[in-house]
């Protein structure tokens, strides 16, 4: 199949090596354990595996068969056909890390363009070549802040309105650092959007304050005072942002934040049941030497031609080993390419239009759903982008089961992460949702109410 050796070639090769059989090459492997019988099914043909996987796939419900209002960190946006056509080019997806710039300019320039697009999108100074996803980018932001203060500041303050999975990941990463405390997101902190509690926690021992923009509930909150207060204590501030929202909203850079991270999945990356996605990591200039992950810089070749190389590699694990800030090695190369192609295709007007469509349709949906008896907006006074929280008359799981029968994937059941949010549904609306879809959803909700 994939190994090309003919019996005759094997003979010739063994002769050159100076052994009789291939098995002899494994003599250093302890004999008692050598060549175990693996209890695995016999190999299948390409035709057979293809049929098997199609069968498995056909049993799933998908966001194409159903009208989906699920978001909560992964969004069902339209991906122009050209994005995947580029990703399928073997020259991109079968290349590896561009350590040899002379034969890797394609990957290097694409990453350089990715970095450029991310700095423009966020209004920050520097973007790296990407991290694994929004959750690990958030954890790495705390890692950066901790190292920026040389381990002297021990507190990471994080809002309860930051994606719960990101906060869990942050805690996992912080276990390795001495006496670091992650706080501010306890159940008692609540989800009202009131920033005073975060403010009160922020002091001279705080390395980083993390908030989300728009937050996990879709809300657009003005963090200006919190940022000023954190900076007055010398602490850094990180925004976790949604990239689509930045098509309309003031970018993190204009709020004077130090670090802005996010998940780039909405930028042309399929839902693919949660991954691979794309961690966006951007900073102000002054943190560049503490930045984890690959960076591409512009330079010249010896004939003076413009060229791109991996730069500041002395920060990274393969050089600094135990002295590096992070162990990160790979970036999400191909996913960063997807985002680069996506933003290039949509361009200035297209990207703004998608953000506007999301915003308008979400607001129409919120207005219509809140007219249904028993359904109310949980935060009616707070502006939102393309996600909002609805209080429901029954447990969300029951409503969703009913919606599913009518061809809808309902919103996210917030009680799964927030015990205090019983009967609260997080609804996401993207440009793929039509007015008719929303009206149909409302009709099903109304009908359920009358049942």
């Amino acid at each position, binding site marked *: 199949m994939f190994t090309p050796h003919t019996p005759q070639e094997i003979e010739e090769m063994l002769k050159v090596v100076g052994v009789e059989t291939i098995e002899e090459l494994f003599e250093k492997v302890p004999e008692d354990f050598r060549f175990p019988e693996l209890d695995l099914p016999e*190999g299948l043909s390409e035709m057979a595996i293809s049929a098997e996987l199609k069968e498995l796939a056909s049993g799933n419900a998908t966001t194409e068969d159903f009208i989906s209002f699920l978001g909560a960190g992964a969004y069902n946006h339209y991906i122009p056909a050209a994005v995947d056509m580029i990703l399928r080019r073997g020259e991109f997806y079968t290349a590896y890390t561009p350590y040899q710039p002379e034969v890797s300019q394609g990957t290097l320039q694409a990453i350089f363009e990715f970095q*450029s697009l991310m700095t423009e999108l966020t209004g920050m100074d520097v973007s790296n070549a990407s991290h694994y996803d929004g959750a690990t980018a958030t954890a790495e932001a705390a890692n950066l802040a901790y190292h920026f203060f040389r381990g002297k500041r021990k507190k990471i303050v994080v809002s309860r309105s930051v994606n719960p999975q990101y906060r869990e990941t942050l805690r996992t990463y912080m276990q390795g650092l001495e006496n670091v405390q992650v706080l501010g997101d306890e159940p008692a902190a609540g989800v009202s959007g009131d920033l005073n509690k975060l403010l009160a926690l922020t002091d001279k021992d705080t390395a980083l304050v993390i908030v989300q923009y728009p937050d996990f509930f879709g809300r657009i909150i003005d963090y200006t005072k919190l940022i000023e207060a954190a900076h007055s204590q010398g602490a850094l501030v990180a925004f976790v942002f949604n990239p689509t929202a930045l098509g309309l909203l003031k970018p993190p850079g204009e709020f004077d934040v130090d670090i802005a991270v996010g998940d780039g999945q909405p930028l042309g990356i399929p839902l693919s049941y949660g991954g691979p996605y794309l961690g966006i990591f951007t900073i102000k200039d002054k943190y560049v030497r503490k930045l984890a992950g690959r960076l591409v810089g512009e330079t010249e070749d010896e004939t003076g031609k413009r060229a791109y190389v991996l730069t500041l590699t002395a920060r990274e694990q393969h050089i600094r080993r135990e002295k590096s800030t992070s162990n990160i090695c790979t970036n999400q190369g191909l996913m960063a390419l997807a985002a680069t192609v996506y933003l290039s295709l949509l361009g200035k007007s297209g990207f703004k239009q998608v953000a506007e469509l999301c915003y308008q349709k979400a607001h129409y949906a919120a207005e219509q759903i809140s007219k249904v008896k028993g359904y109310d907006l949980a935060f009616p006074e707070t502006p939102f982008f393309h996600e909002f929280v609805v209080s429901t008359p029954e447990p969300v799981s029951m409503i969703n089961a009913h919606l599913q029968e009518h061809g809808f994937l309902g919103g996210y059941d917030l009680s799964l992460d927030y015990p205090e949010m019983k009967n609260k549904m997080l609804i996401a609306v993207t440009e793929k949702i039509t007015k008719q879809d929303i009206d149909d959803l409302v009709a099903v909700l109304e009908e359920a109410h009358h049942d």
Partner: protein
Amino acid sequence: MIEPTIYELSQPGRKGVAFPESDVPAYDLPAGFAREALKLPELSEQDVVRHFTHLSQLNYSIDGGFYPLGSCTMKYNPKINEEMARLPGLANTHPLQPIETVQGNLYIMYQLQEWLQEISGLNRVCLSPAAGAQGELVGALIIKKYHEINNAPLRTKILIPDSAHGTNPATSAMSGFKVVSLPSDARGNVDLEALKAECDETLAGLMLTNPNTLGLFDENVLEVIQLVHEAGGLVYGDGANLNALLGVVRPGDLGFDIMHFNLHKTFSTPHGGGGPGSGPVGVSEALAEFLPSPVVTIIEKGDEETPPFFGFYTPQHTIGRMKAFYGHFGMHIRAYTYIAMHGPAGLLDIAQKAVLNANYLMAQIKEDYTLAYDRTCMHEFVVEGAWEDIPDIHALDISKRLMDYGYHPPTNYFPLIVHEALMIEPTETESKQTLDAFAKAMKAIAKEAREDPDLLQTAPHNTPIRRCDEVKAARDLVLCCWIPE
């Protein structure tokens, strides 16, 4: 010819995609939050496609040629993998859908966990880690938590052989361990005396790559593992070189407690120009409850009529979550496809041909290049990219000259313990003809080094660009392209 940047190609007013007009009433943006300017490029679809096609043509790739990049296992990526990962029924599922609507996904993940367990001889596998380095972090955090729960918080030392990947010490430090480097002995094995000297009550564990980055199977692996276990430590296996062991030996049988898999190295998921990787982690029975969450499990057993019902499980002492959702599912599908197509015989064939190819190539070039360790290698081997009689020629020059012959260079200057290292890993999918041609090029370069050293020192000559000024890149630090006002 320089390919302009996407911004240099931009023309004000041009559009690449049209979206339908809004079909709902207009709502105002909240005051004070409206963005003033967002300078994205403006191009037609064809502009964009041509630009990225041009860029792709500047890359070397496995599909284009031989890529003997040691330790990276640049094997062929079967095209069926790509088709399967894009099946609409899989690619269009949202990670927060109710589990009864995604049983197909969970079946694939569960089965992959089971298969990786069987292949590695470990008891429980978690698929969530995003890449090998993150798998290592999982391992180090498990070691830490295991000792904490067993009331041995003073076990703070991790031993790492000097031939290890840089991620090993970086991971250990990130997890709060003190890193002690172990020397290699004259045959490239872990130095047993040095190991014994470090086996004390502060020992948390050892991170071992086997076969190591010299391409050598540690001849004392059982003793090494036993020493660490007797001292109360755990042994972490860096699975970077698992390709050489498929069906040959199971790390769990040798006594490894934890190991990560690099799906892009061993199970043919694409390298993608530097990711996404995927780094599942397997552990022994004693460590199963420390795995990151979530792990896929069977919630309700099936019978002859009904299939089992799959769901997620949070291990009791879990070190926590490593990322959002469940890992790189798109990569899990590819690895599943690959293992299913190979079966036990096919997997063994991979390891056998990978090792045969490496030994064959080593035999072909060892007259012209000094071997770092002259013994049977596994899937890769290391030579010195320098000669005493031509002191001005370095591994870098040989690497660059190989590009003129149409090859991607081997990994160079790694492992650090070999002078001017060139680390060569042919992988199992390369034919004898390819290896012969590469050996011929290596020999020709060795000859050129003596007869016309300038040819090497000024190489490459036939590539899209020549050698780059890396000092300038780091000094000027231009990390973002020109964006028009």
